[in-house]
């Protein structure tokens, strides 16, 4: 009799598994036309708004051509805004553009770590249903600054000077850092102390300086509320991002989220280790209400565990699809806005919205989302990248498995209830390990004590075959 019971539960499990697989299949295939409104089981995302000082950049790169978009989330008075970025070549007017602010938000939303949820079916009558819910994530942040005056010759050459949108752009080359520093100060840029020494290596490597500030007249004229991102393009074998200048006087942690778009495959750092963020973990369902906090704590824990010196891979995916989607895939136009310049030759590469194909179509845009939290002591060198041919998909994905809450009046049901206890405890431990939160607090929030005693009694009852 016992073995019969055992067999039955096994059959039940198999049946449940089959149903789940079938249903997943049905949802992916049958429901795809509405996929834009309802994409898989996505419930929440942990996007860049979580971090206080997160800079975001988009690098679209093919061969040695780079299109770099720098997000501007500067919160202070726009008249104080200025940026100095070392660039590999002199940039002419046509190489600098103002990007659409929306595009970075789109990339962020598309690639953000995501929370998905599944619902257990009634273990007595395996009729399954799934649904998706949506909820949003937390608030925004500030950036660097400087100002204006006149021009003098200090070994500094103004290679180009032009105006793009609300920005005044100057491209400088310099012979030595003292001259450059004086020029910048003389022209009203507030250069932090200690910057002089840091300018030297870039000057010696014959890099140029891209200096931007806001043209107030244009800014008012156009009536923009916020500064738009700057987009620059250049040809160079250098695939790097200068981070040292941003750390002149700061010892605090800074967040950088880089979206790297390449026709080839995943990008990675070559001078620091790139680690994957923990993913595909089952966590307690209550985390749905605090997914932002969860992700922040989890990131911090992983970051500390890796000794604060690795870059985290949060997303690596072929951009023609997503599963589950935390936002609609980018349209062709949006990809172009993001800097993808190699689309023209292949008009059918991107799946048209609302019509994702069954097998993952291979587009020629692969996105890598790298999240680097850097400090002066652990990241002494600028970030150097390379694109690899690795086309393996990866996403930060966290799973909520809702238990069945209805009545269960069969043996399988009691077995199921019993198994829940173990499952919840495992989820609690996973959560504690990932976030470093107190396990007792987690258990309390999950109301595990009640659950535990409930299933304990049920365990005894089932022991007597009731």
């Amino acid at each position: 009799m016992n073995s019969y019971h055992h067999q039955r539960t096994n059959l039940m499990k198999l049946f449940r598994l089959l149903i789940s697989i079938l249903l997943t299949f049905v949802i992916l295939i049958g429901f795809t036309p509405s996929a834009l409104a309802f994409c898989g089981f996505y419930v929440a995302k942990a996007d860049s708004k979580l971090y206080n000082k997160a800079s975001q950049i988009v690098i679209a790169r093919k061969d040695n051509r780079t299109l770099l978009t720098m997000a501007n989330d500067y919160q202070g008075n726009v008249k104080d805004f200025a940026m100095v970025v070392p660039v590999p070549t002199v940039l002419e007017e046509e190489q600098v553009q103002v990007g659409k602010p929306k595009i970075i938000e789109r990339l962020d939303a598309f690639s953000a770590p995501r929370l998905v949820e599944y619902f257990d079916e009634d273990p007595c009558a395996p009729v399954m249903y799934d649904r998706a819910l949506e909820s949003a994530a937390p608030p925004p942040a500030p950036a660097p600054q400087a100002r204006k005056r006149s021009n003098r010759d200090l070994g500094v050459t103004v290679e180009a000077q032009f105006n793009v949108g609300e920005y005044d752009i100057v491209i400088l080359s310099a012979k030595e850092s003292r001259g450059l520093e004086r020029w910048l100060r003389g022209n009203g840029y507030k250069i932090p102390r200690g910057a002089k020494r840091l300018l030297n290596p870039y000057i010696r490597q014959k890099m140029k300086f891209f200096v931007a500030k806001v043209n107030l007249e244009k800014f008012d004229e156009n009536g923009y509320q916020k500064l738009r991102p700057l987009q620059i393009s250049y040809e160079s074998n250098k695939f790097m991002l200068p981070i040292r200048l941003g750390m002149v006087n700061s010892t605090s942690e800074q967040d950088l989220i880089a979206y790297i778009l390449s026709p080839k495959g995943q990008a990675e750092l070559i001078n620091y280790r790139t680690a994957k963020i923990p993913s595909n973990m089952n966590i307690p369902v209550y985390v749905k209400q605090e997914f932002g906090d969860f992700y922040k704590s989890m990131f911090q824990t992983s970051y500390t565990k890796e000794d604060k010196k690795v870059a985290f891979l949060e997303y690596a995916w072929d951009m023609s699809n997503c599963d589950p989607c935390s936002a609609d895939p980018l349209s062709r136009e949006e990809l172009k806005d993001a800097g993808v310049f190699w689309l023209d030759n292949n008009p059918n590469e991107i799946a048209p919205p609302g019509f994702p194909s069954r097998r993952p179509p291979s587009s020629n845009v692969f996105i890598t989302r790298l999240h680097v939290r850097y400090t002066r002591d652990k990241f002494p060198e600028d970030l150097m990248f390379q694109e690899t041919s690795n086309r393996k998909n990866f996403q930060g994905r966290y799973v909520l498995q809702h238990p069945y809450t209805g009545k269960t009046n069969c043996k399988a049901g009691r077995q199921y209830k019993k198994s829940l206890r173990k499952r919840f405890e495992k989820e609690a431990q996973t959560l504690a390990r990932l976030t470093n939160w107190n396990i007792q607090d987690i258990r309390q929030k999950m109301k595990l004590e009640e659950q535990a005693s409930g299933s304990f009694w049920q365990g005894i009852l089932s022991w007597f075959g009731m």
Partner: protein
Amino acid sequence: MLFKDIRDYQILYLSLFLLLGISTRDWTLRPSMILVAIATSLITQSLLTLIVNRWSFTTNKKENKQHKQYKTNIRSPLITSLGISLLLRADYPTTMFFAAASAITSKFIFKLEDKHFFNPANFGIISALVITPDAWVSPGQWGEDWWYGLLFIGAGGMILHRIGRWDTTAAFLGFYALLEAIRNFWLDWTWDVYLHRLMSGSLLLFALFMVTDPRSIPNSRTGRLTWAACIALLTFILRNNFYLSTAVFWALFALAPFTVLLDQLWKASRFSWTVNSVSASVSRRDIQ
């Protein structure tokens, strides 16, 4: 029997690194790829040994000698495939197959007397990078942990001490470190940038395991030192002027053929794997 041959240590250490990599570094390391590399290397080695022996058997008819050559060498292809597995990444097993097969084949083709002048693993890596579309090398994946550095140095040091080719490693690393120091000084970077650049696990791995292979480096000490310094210089140029992330491999590949020239310039006695010099003549033959 085990650990009589120095290469057993190499095999042990390389496998240890692979295991460490799989368990702690969450790389793109995949056991299936490692298996493909090992199997391909072993099969290619035995097939080619067979072919070469048959062929020389019919042409030379030196029976006694040939019989010994039938004993297929396992250590060398194993080391080669472990090296490839550690350093090369690929999307498809076919690429791994190609890399391992070309690595072993290179030993049979590019050889002079009984010395092959390309390091087989290096040859395999370069040919996969050039010919296949999906191969890559992840120089950053080793990280810069001191712990790893020490482990590498300790392990490598032991091996090198025993095979007596530590001078190549020292010359390569020393000269490279010097060049980077000069560059760092000239660029006016802080010295932690310099240390960070040198603390690269893959650079050490290369210096300890690839540039030291006695089968493919010059015989005389002067030759080796010159050669190692040239590789360091070329690596430095490729890395800093051409921004090649695979600079070391290209440098070794480009300079490998010069071992022949250097051997002509500085003649020296040939190296043997076995500690015991009496058995040197045997090991000479089953080395392929």
